[in-house]
């Protein structure tokens, strides 16, 4: 799969402060790419550079294999974290204006807006002013104007803030739909759990540096600890626990089993099959719970940060 976006050795300084320190990324075409990291890590700086709002001090950015040019804004849709609309402008007028700034003709913009307004069932808002809408309603309009010009690259910075769970789900569905239609999506967020399940690829950024990036599953495999959370229904918990301790590394776990028995985290040596553990457990009772602890993005993040420092 070829890369839609290539970021090579980008450096950005604001005076004394380094916002991005030699960051390189590859965003494959048609993927959902998570740009994760805590507040102030440099995510927004990077996104602003991709959007040509600011220029990097050094480094290059290729979109579809070619260096960015001013007209590329027409191929990028950006929903910033700090977002809003003109309060006293009417919804329709405003959407048309923003669409035209992205290079759409007025008639084409009208046609597409009608499609989206029908889809979200918000046609009645056309002549309302933004200040008359609720925050969630305004966010929907904002989403529409972000994707209206069918950009190759969509960048969402904290996309779900301001949406209630139902609308957040609706938007998430639309985003995946856009991905299926060929768009490439970049998610930026500090709430890693919120988008993790949607991402194919992730990059973790901390203190201006990229610390981890790649295919999400690969990274997870790399950071897996081969630890299983187990729950066995048994009357002889301590005996089983002692038995396990002889073969594996065990630690306490924090889930609750409905029947009385033994709950533990068990780490098996690298290369061993979990079946060995399972069959051992099954001899001593009903195995009600057997789950690999897959590291979450934030677990990986914490580990990666610790490893780096």
């Amino acid at each position: 799969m070829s890369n839609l976006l290539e970021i090579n050795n980008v450096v950005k300084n604001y005076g004394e402060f380094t916002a991005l320190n030699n960051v390189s990324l590859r965003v494959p075409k048609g993927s959902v790419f998570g740009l994760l990291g805590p507040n102030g890590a440099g995510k927004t700086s990077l996104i602003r550079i991709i959007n040509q709002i600011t220029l990097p001090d050094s480094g290059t950015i290729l979109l579809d294999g070619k260096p960015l040019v001013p007209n590329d804004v027409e191929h990028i849709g950006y929903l910033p974290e700090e977002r809003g609309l003109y309060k006293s402008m009417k919804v329709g007028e405003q959407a048309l204006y923003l669409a035209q700034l992205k290079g759409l003709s007025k008639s084409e913009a009208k046609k597409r807006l009608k499609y989206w307004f029908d889809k979200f069932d918000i046609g009645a808002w056309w002549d309302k002013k933004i200040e008359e809408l609720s925050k969630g309603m305004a966010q929907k309009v904002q989403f529409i104007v972000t994707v209206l010009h069918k950009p190759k690259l969509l960048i969402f910075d904290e996309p779900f803030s301001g949406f209630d769970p139902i609308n957040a789900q609706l938007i998430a569905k639309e985003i995946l739909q856009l991905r299926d239609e060929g768009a490439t999506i970049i998610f930026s967020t500090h709430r890693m759990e919120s988008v993790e399940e949607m991402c194919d690829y992730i990059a973790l950024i901390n203190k201006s540096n990229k610390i981890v990036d790649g295919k999400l599953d690969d990274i997870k495999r790399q950071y897996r600890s081969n630890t299983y959370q187990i729950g066995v229904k048994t009357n002889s918990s301590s005996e089983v626990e002692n038995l396990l301790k002889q073969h594996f590394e065990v630690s306490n776990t924090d889930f609750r089993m409905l029947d009385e028995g033994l709950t533990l985290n068990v780490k098996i040596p690298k290369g061993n099959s979990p079946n060995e553990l399972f069959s051992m457990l099954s001899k001593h009772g009903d195995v009600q719970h057997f789950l690999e602890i897959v590291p979450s993005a934030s677990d990986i993040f914490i580990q990666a940060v610790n490893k780096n420092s």
Partner: protein
Amino acid sequence: MKKLKLIIRREFLAKVKNKSFLVMTFLSPLLMVGIGFLVFFLSKKNDEKIKKIVYVDESKLFTENDFKDTKTYDYVDYTALGIEESKKKVEEGGYYGVIHIPQIDSLEVLATSITFYSKESPNMSVIERLESTIESKFKNLKLTGFGIDLTKIEASKIAAEIKMYNFSGEKSSKLINWLKIGVGAIAGYMLMMFVMIYGTSVMRSVIEEKTSRIIEVIVSSVKPFQLMLGKIIGNASAGLLQFFIWGIIMLIVSFIASSFFGVNMTEMQTAKMSPEQLEAMNNAVAGDKAQMLVQEIFRLPLVTMFVLFIFYFLGGYFLYSSLFAAVGAAVDNETDTQQFMLPIMLPLILGVYIGFATVINDPHGPISTIFSMIPFTSPIVMLMRVPFGVPWYEIAISMALLLVTFVFMVWVAAKIYRVGILMYGKKPTYKDLWKWIKYKG
């Protein structure tokens, strides 16, 4: 270019569709003309009141001829009553005041011993009038004392009028000088008003984009510089439209009002002049002189004036409004703008003061020349000087300086603007602004 047009259009419409714009456009000229007429009527009514002044002339030097009644002054001779009785009468009401001329032989001593009593402190014009009556009477008395025939003095009066030419052969007169001052002052004042009103409106519009958080959405589609430029031009267009409508409304309203109230416009303009001045003016305007005036107006550097007006108007407006845009970008809300507004307003106001204080007296003096070169004051001061004819090289230097400064300041403002629009929270200091200017890319 297409995007710039879109931005200009939006900014223009956003401004024009605003309710306060409509109110300002259609109400303020009515108010201004209305207030003008009100002031005129009140002052006229005030002047029409006849002032009754009592005089007690113990010196017996004055006659009824000296204290002649006029349209607004009635003089009453209470010499027979004596000063104490007269003062009582005045206190009882009905009289403006009483002037007491005591019996003293020496005119010099008498001249400083005359007193005026009134209930309230008297109008200065009344006192001046009385003083001039007394002065001319005493002068005549002294002249007669020297054995000079007063009729001869009267006959010897002669009016001179110097005709003025400059070396390029242009003729000028005092009247045309006043006209030049008027044209220059109006142009300079208009520029200042325009910059203040529409410069701050650019600033407000930038702040609005910041507070509504739409700015980042916009700058992901257009260059910040384009947005700033579009804003400045859009607001200026709305402003020009407003000025244009004001002009038309003022004309119509003045016309209606003057015909409705029966107020003669010339009367309104000349209301403040004394009868002598009026007469002189009437003479001047009448006949040949009127023709000369028209000719002289056409001899003014009209084309140059027009071209320079456009140049300095645009130059001044763009220079200042880009600074206003930068201030708007630097702050989060309007209350934070104060500390940055002062340095912008100062040269603007200075320009108008310098213009009114020096250009009128001495259009080619060193102060007016220097300030018509300094780019921040030059649009106003130079506009005021232009009608008097400014050497081409001075204009060239001034224009070049303005142009260079304009480009430089727009560059600086754009830098501050570009960084500032994406900064929230902390109120920036001048040091921060300096840092922003130095940021690359």
